[in-house]
């Protein structure tokens, strides 16, 4: 019977293979949606492990999580270093790592942080970050790059890289006057860390301090930084970073110089630097506009004139002992008298990763930060934020699932159409089969067998199709979104889905099979005898 069904399908191989293809696509879609969802969730959960709290300026939990852990978007405003020290000194806090964001390197997010990041960050259920090459920061201009960044651009220890302003993939505002030297590349983690570039907080500040060179003519280049981003030019842009960046700097300086003589403006968070001239910086991905006012006033509050010089002194100094400090993970090792033992104290940071020695202190810390009189801060629990994220994406996931189920239904209907449409043309075939002993029931079985073979092959092709697609798209997914779809064989859930498709196909085939049963009963052999 199977042999007959196979031959019969082979005889109609064109239509049959189209049907198989449509079932295969539906199956690949159904499994793909599931795997995309599972892989995204697993990847997100892996990226966020080991961090008990993320402290950032008051904002949406999900946005804070996305910006800090995944380098997607920004936290908006900055927060003061005083808040960092406050958080660090909470009793239950085991460690705290500052984060500065807002730059990118050829589209990959740049994080300003301390060497402690590499000691405390955990991924994939508690694994340490390992260096594939080199080590942590050695100097202010040190950079540590994720595995993906290293692989994509072929960077090694010693490579000099230049970062660009803004979070987007396309930047005209390249900090080519503040290059960084790669001192370490991280081993692949399969998380967002792979696609990040880490620089020290002092390096991050220095990058922007470099802008504080004497102001150029304010009218020199009214275009500065306002050129709309356009795709495709980016690589060229960043590769030769030869044009336009001066425009950017000039524009930048234009609005700093007249403002006041704060030397620290330049190494503040970008948002600060830009909000002062909203008009000319619309091209940037930041949300300057909404945060302009609070930030601005914050600025004026602390008056660190002369800080820049201190910086320079510190940088020189830092080269000498930075490594020790990082290796031993002791901030104190920096030994800066005037900064309570911290190696470098940026004025503004964007977020703090916090590890707790006692996790039951979370609620207390959240309450303390909420009632903080000086700054509006949020303390986000990564897992809670992830749950919020899933509840947001859940609707879209369900819509996708619904779509894939609809496609599966359509493809199975296509199969029923294929089987039904040929029934009349096959009446002669059926009467021949009956004449050699096939009962109507056998022919009923033949149709069902054909349907099951079609669906079964379709499912197998679909699984293979998904595997091929996964292999092809994983580089893109991991480059752009920091996660991969697992290559694994179907798990129990997926097998259940496949079985469901198979069973629905079997049920659907009963329709043409019943029709053919009736036809063969009424035809008998009479047509030909």
């Amino acid at each position: 019977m199977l042999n007959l069904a196979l031959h019969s399908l082979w005889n109609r191989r064109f239509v049959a293979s189209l049907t198989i293809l449509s079932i295969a696509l539906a199956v690949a879609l159904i499994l793909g949606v599931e795997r995309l969802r599972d892989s995204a969730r697993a990847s997100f959960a892996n990226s966020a492990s080991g961090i008990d709290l993320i402290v950032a300026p008051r904002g949406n939990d999900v946005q804070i999580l996305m910006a800090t852990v995944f380098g997607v978007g920004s936290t908006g405003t900055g927060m003061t270093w005083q808040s960092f020290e406050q958080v660090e000194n909470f009793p239950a806090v085991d460690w705290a790592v500052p984060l500065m964001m807002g730059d990118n390197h050829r589209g990959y997010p740049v994080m300003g942080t301390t060497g402690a990041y590499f000691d405390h960050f955990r991924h994939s259920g508690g694994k340490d970050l390992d260096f594939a090459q080199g080590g942590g920061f050695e100097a202010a201009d040190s950079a540590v790059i994720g595995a993906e960044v290293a692989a994509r651009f072929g960077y090694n220890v010693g490579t000099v890289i230049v970062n660009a302003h803004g979070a987007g993939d396309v930047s005209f505002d390249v900090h080519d006057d503040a290059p960084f030297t790669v001192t370490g590349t991280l081993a692949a983690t399969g998380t967002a860390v792979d696609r990040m570039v880490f620089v020290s907080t002092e390096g991050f500040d220095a990058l922007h301090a470099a802008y504080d060179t004497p102001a150029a003519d304010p009218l020199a280049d009214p275009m500065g930084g306002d050129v709309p981003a356009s795709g495709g030019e980016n690589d060229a842009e960043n590769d030769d970073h030869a044009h336009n960046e001066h425009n950017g700097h000039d524009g930048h300086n234009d609005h700093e110089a007249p403002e006041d003589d704060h030397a620290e403006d330049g190494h503040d968070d970008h948002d600060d630097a830009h909000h002062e001239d909203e008009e000319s910086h619309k091209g940037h991905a930041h949300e300057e506009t909404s945060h302009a006012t609070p930030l601005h006033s914050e600025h004026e509050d602390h008056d660190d004139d002369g800080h820049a010089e201190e910086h320079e002194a510190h940088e020189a100094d830092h080269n000498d002992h930075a490594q020790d400090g990082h290796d031993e993970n002791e901030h104190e090792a920096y030994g800066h008298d005037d900064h309570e033992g911290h190696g470098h104290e940026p004025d503004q940071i964007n977020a703090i990763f916090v590890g707790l020695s006692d996790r039951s202190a979370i609620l207390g810390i959240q309450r303390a930060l909420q009632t903080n009189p000086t700054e509006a801060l949020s303390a986000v629990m990564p897992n809670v934020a992830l749950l919020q994220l899933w509840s947001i994406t859940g609707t879209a996931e369900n819509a996708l699932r619904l779509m894939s189920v609809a496609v599966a239904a359509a493809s199975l209907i296509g199969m029923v159409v294929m089987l039904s449409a040929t029934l009349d043309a096959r009446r002669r075939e059926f009467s021949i089969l009956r004449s050699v002993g096939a009962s109507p029931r056998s022919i009923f079985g033949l149709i069902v067998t054909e349907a099951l073979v079609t669906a079964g092959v379709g499912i197998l092709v679909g699984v293979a199709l998904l595997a091929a697609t996964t292999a092809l798209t994983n580089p893109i997914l991991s480059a752009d979104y920091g996660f991969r779809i697992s290559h694994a064989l179907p798990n129990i859930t997926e097998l259940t889905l496949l079985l469901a498709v198979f069973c629905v196909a079997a049920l659907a085939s009963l329709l043409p099979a019943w029709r053919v049963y009736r036809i063969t009963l009424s035809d008998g052999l009479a047509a030909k005898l």
Partner: protein
Amino acid sequence: MTLILRDLRYQWPDAAEPVLNIPEFTLAAGERLLLRGPSGCGKSTLLAALSGVIDVATGAVDVAGTDVGALPPSRRDAFRVDHIGIVFQAFNLIPWLSARDNITLPCTFSARRRGQLVMSPKEDADALLAALNLASLADTVAGALSHGQQQRVAAARALIGGPDLIVADEPTSALDPDAKENFMHLLSGEAARTGAALLVVSHDPGLESHFDRVINMSDINFPKGAPC
């Protein structure tokens, strides 16, 4: 007796007159019989009756000891393939199956035919193909064969697994005279070899030499109370 007909009457549901009225007819095991007669005389209806395709009265048709009319419809398909090999006027091969696969079809549906094979279905089919000078075409799909070749494949399909009765309906109508002679020679020879009774219905002249007995339809069938 392989085939016994007794008071077989049949009238098609929408016909005014009965087409069959056969008081008595018998065919012995291993006997080769040619049934002659013009078209429209009930030959095909007779074949339908004895192969259980049409409903007949209980006791009217006995094939290899089984009362065909008493069989429930669901048993008739199995009975037919178990005991009767049919060669059709239009060959009735499945065009997209190979010659060999067409021949082994009855073995797919009948355990009895399978049980009476000398070797495996494939080997028996190949042996029949060799006997019919078709050995080289075993793997060719039936649709690609000539009429003469298709007819021989159809004969092999009727012969495989040693059914009690071989029934052929105008088997030579599509063949040229030389091929007719050749085909009838093979068919009667194979029937004799397997010991099957052979009933050939044909109005072709010149086939008589291959048969033990030749009768006219009008000799046995009396619809409307008179010879056909």
